[in-house]
């Protein structure tokens, strides 16, 4: 990051959402790297960019495909890498042929010469990387968006080398670690396939129990299953779906309709308040032991700094006790014992990461198969090896522009997109607890053009209405927004439940909901009241 030449920061406001990562990016910029920011909003991250590409919400694939076509037609493809290390290039090439610069400009709103410039700079750079966050993944075509960016890196050989690559910036401190440990519906620990018979047999032998052979449900599929009545009981650990999921009214209804809802939490969240049973838990990050994995795959130790409140139990203790009541006596293993079991069942992945080494090295980046292995700074270096060591080719994937499911119309003429602000976090469960001069509460960011057209003054209460719900919040006239776009967060759901507005459509491949785009109407909340009081 600090030594790369070009950075595409795509769908990410890292300055606010990943501030310390952004320090490293700034070091890169001071070292001479060029920064291109792709974001519908001219965010505080975009203000550091050499070029801001203020694309239309949900037009990421169109932008990427247009750049790819330009790179191909300008003869800037990394031919050697593409022929040695990739597959599916011809199909991909044919699929982007219709994305001319003019088509790209029409679909994305970004001027053709700016797209052309970005494509050339990226392709010609010695080292270049693409970093993204939820601006790429909170769409109904999330996985395709990611694949579109991977295609660009494959096309130009910007992968598997120092200062290059595709970097999703993880939004939560252990979202990566959850995946590592197998807390995803289709994987065992270490990203091993549940549906693979040989792997399953190995885990059955190790755990001495029969394992079901099918992938489980992701969150959006669970919500659908609740709706269908096939999922009747839910155990929620440290998540607040009543407020964090799209189309809030709907989700709350589904949770209330369950036969049995158990919530393991550190504070009384909205979801916990709906539960039949609440299991008060210690906050593991500071009241327990364990590991978390950060965005750069670095496994690091969490340690107990203080005692939990009376009655709150260690999370491992709770899980072991539930197992006992279900007829499995696991005893009460320590976090290190659980971790060592993980190292055993996922040896290629984490075999070398003992607690002792994690301490000594200040964390280790996976994969780290044995105790002499230093960890892996970047992935996919094998793609540059000689044929025998190169392994399977990296596939191009054909992806097509679709755009958001819900586009503005006469009744709902604005597009609402959501995100984070610096001082707050998700549904505010954690950040509501401290006083900050930056806590201004929820606001509706609106462009000066739309505010003027609608007669809205700064800080005036406005009503935002979508097809699913309606909320009231103060307007914030924000010159970083283009006309037609409004921005809100999910940080203050008790005051302003933004998720009553968002649309309940999700990506069939990843299960991510389209938080980034829904059509809304904005109007002055008390205009009529004021008007009538003036007449009386």
């Amino acid at each position, binding site marked *: 990051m600090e*030594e790369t030449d070009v950075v595409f920061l795509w769908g990410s406001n890292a300055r606010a*959402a*990943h*501030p*310390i*990562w952004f*320090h490293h990016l*700034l070091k890169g910029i*001071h070292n001479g790297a060029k920064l291109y920011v792709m974001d519908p909003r001219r965010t505080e991250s975009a203000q*550091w960019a050499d070029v801001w590409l203020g694309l239309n919400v949900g037009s990421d694939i169109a932008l990427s495909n247009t750049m790819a076509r330009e790179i191909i037609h300008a003869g800037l493809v990394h031919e050697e890498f593409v022929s040695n290390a990739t597959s599916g290039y011809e199909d991909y090439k044919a699929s982007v042929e219709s994305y001319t610069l003019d088509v790209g400009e029409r679909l994305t709103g970004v001027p053709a010469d700016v797209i052309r410039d970005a494509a050339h700079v990226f392709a010609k750079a010695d080292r270049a990387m693409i970093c993204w966050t939820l601006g790429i993944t909170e769409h109904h075509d999330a996985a395709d968006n990611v694949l579109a960016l991977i295609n660009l890196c494959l096309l130009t050989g910007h992968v598997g080398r*120092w*200062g290059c690559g595709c970097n999703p*910036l*993880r*939004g*939560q*401190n*252990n*979202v*990566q670690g959850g995946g590592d440990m197998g807390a995803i519906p289709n994987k065992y620990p270490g990203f091993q396939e549940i549906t693979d018979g040989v792997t399953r047999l190995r885990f059955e032998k190790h755990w001495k129990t029969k394992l079901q052979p099918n992938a489980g449900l992701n969150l959006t599929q669970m919500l659908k299953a609740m709706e269908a009545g096939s999922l009747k009981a839910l155990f929620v650990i440290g998540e607040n779906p009543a407020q964090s999921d799209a189309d809030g009214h709907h989700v709350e209804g589904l949770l209330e309709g369950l036969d049995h809802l158990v919530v393991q939490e*550190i*504070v009384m969240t909205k979801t916990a308040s709906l539960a039949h049973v609440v299991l008060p838990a210690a*906050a593991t*990050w*500071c*009241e327990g032991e364990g590991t*978390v*994995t*950060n*965005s*750069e795959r*670095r496994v*690091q*130790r*969490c*340690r*107990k*700094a*203080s*005692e939990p*409140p009376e009655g709150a139990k260690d999370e491992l203790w709770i899980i072991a006790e539930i197992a006992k009541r279900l007829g499995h006596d696991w005893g009460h293993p320590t976090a290190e014992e659980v971790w060592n079991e993980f190292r055993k069942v996922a040896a290629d992945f984490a075999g070398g990461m003992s607690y002792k080494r994690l301490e000594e*090295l*200040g*964390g280790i980046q996976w994969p780290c198969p044995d105790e002499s292995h*230093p960890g892996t*700074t970047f992935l996919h270096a094998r793609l540059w090896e000689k044929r025998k060591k190169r392994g399977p080719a990296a596939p191009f994937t054909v992806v097509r522009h679709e755009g958001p499911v819900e586009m503005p119309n006469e009744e709902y003429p604005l597009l609402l997109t959501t995100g984070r602000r*610096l*001082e707050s*976090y998700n549904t505010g*469960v*954690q*950040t*509501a*607890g*401290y*006083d*900050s*001069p*930056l806590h201004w509460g929820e606001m509706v960011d609106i462009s000066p053009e739309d505010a003027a057209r609608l007669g809205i003054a700064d800080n005036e209460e406005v009503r935002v209405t979508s097809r699913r719900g309606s909320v009231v919040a103060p307007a914030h006239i924000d010159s970083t927004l283009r006309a037609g776009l409004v921005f809100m967060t999910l940080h203050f759901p008790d005051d302003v439940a933004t998720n009553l507005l968002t649309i309940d459509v999700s990506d069939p491949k990843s299960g991510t909901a389209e938080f980034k785009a829904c059509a809304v109407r904005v109007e002055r909340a008390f205009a009529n009241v004021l008007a009538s009081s003036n007449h009386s």
Partner: protein
Amino acid sequence: MTVPSFVQIRRPDREPKKTIELQIDGKAVKVPEGTTILTACRTLGIEIPTLCYLETLRPVNVCRVCMVEVEGSRVLVPSCSRQVEAGMVVRTGNDRVNHTRKMVLEMLASSVDLSTTPGMDELLEEYDCKPERYGPPAPPAAAGVRDAAVCGHHTPPNPDFAATVAQPPMVDNDLYIRDYAKCVLCYKCVEACGVDHQNTFAIAVAGRGFDARISTELAVELPDSACVYCGNCIAVCPTGALMAKREFDMRSDGSWDEEKQKATDTICPYCGVGCTLTLHVQGNEIVKATSPLDNGVTLGNLCIKGRFGWRFVQRNAES
């Protein structure tokens, strides 16, 4: 300070540095090209006091405490920034060096409240400093007076008192305070807020000479400034002029007790960057959060959430 190897990972095609040989206090030493005299001294176990130097910041050469003698140089040189040269002969503790350090420390101690500067009492004693010989300290300035000083406007000094920067602490938000009666103008906060780390540029040095002070733009209060409350200025402040409000309040009511505090490293519970948080716990209450300077992810920096956003785990402890 030991820097873990992952901090130094560089692109693989970089050439190794040349080795430079020099002499410090009569001992020969070999260090890589580009090393500072200060670092070379530390490899020999020679301790040199510093105020404005920090491993994670670029040297600004302002405190003049780390001066050493280099043979052939007319004046003393700041060891924190001067790079070693082949055949250099360095003396770190002769009379000339010690006399300079004594003067610098005495003048600071006569004009600034150094009561919360770690290690300062020992340093003043080591160099036989007698700040009281400059006279009794002048009475504190009223709030805002030093911030209103205009360049070029001078009042004649009062020979009965030692001039001071004493003034009331600025408490204008719930997260951290600024007590500029304790400020030695080391610039660390300005550099941390600026290009070295945070790049927010909320503060700078305003005024000249004895009127120089750290200021927000137009001396506005923090909530009206560009400050984003990362507290990375607090992390580098060597004197306690910048202090988290919780520590300031506890010191004020006498409950702050570092001997009863235990520091534990864990990982911040917010975004996926994975910043190491050192939680300072006193009586089962988190009273402060910092990050280690030698941590490759943070270099000692945090954002507002990491540095201040952990109250949710201890609402009971404070109520």
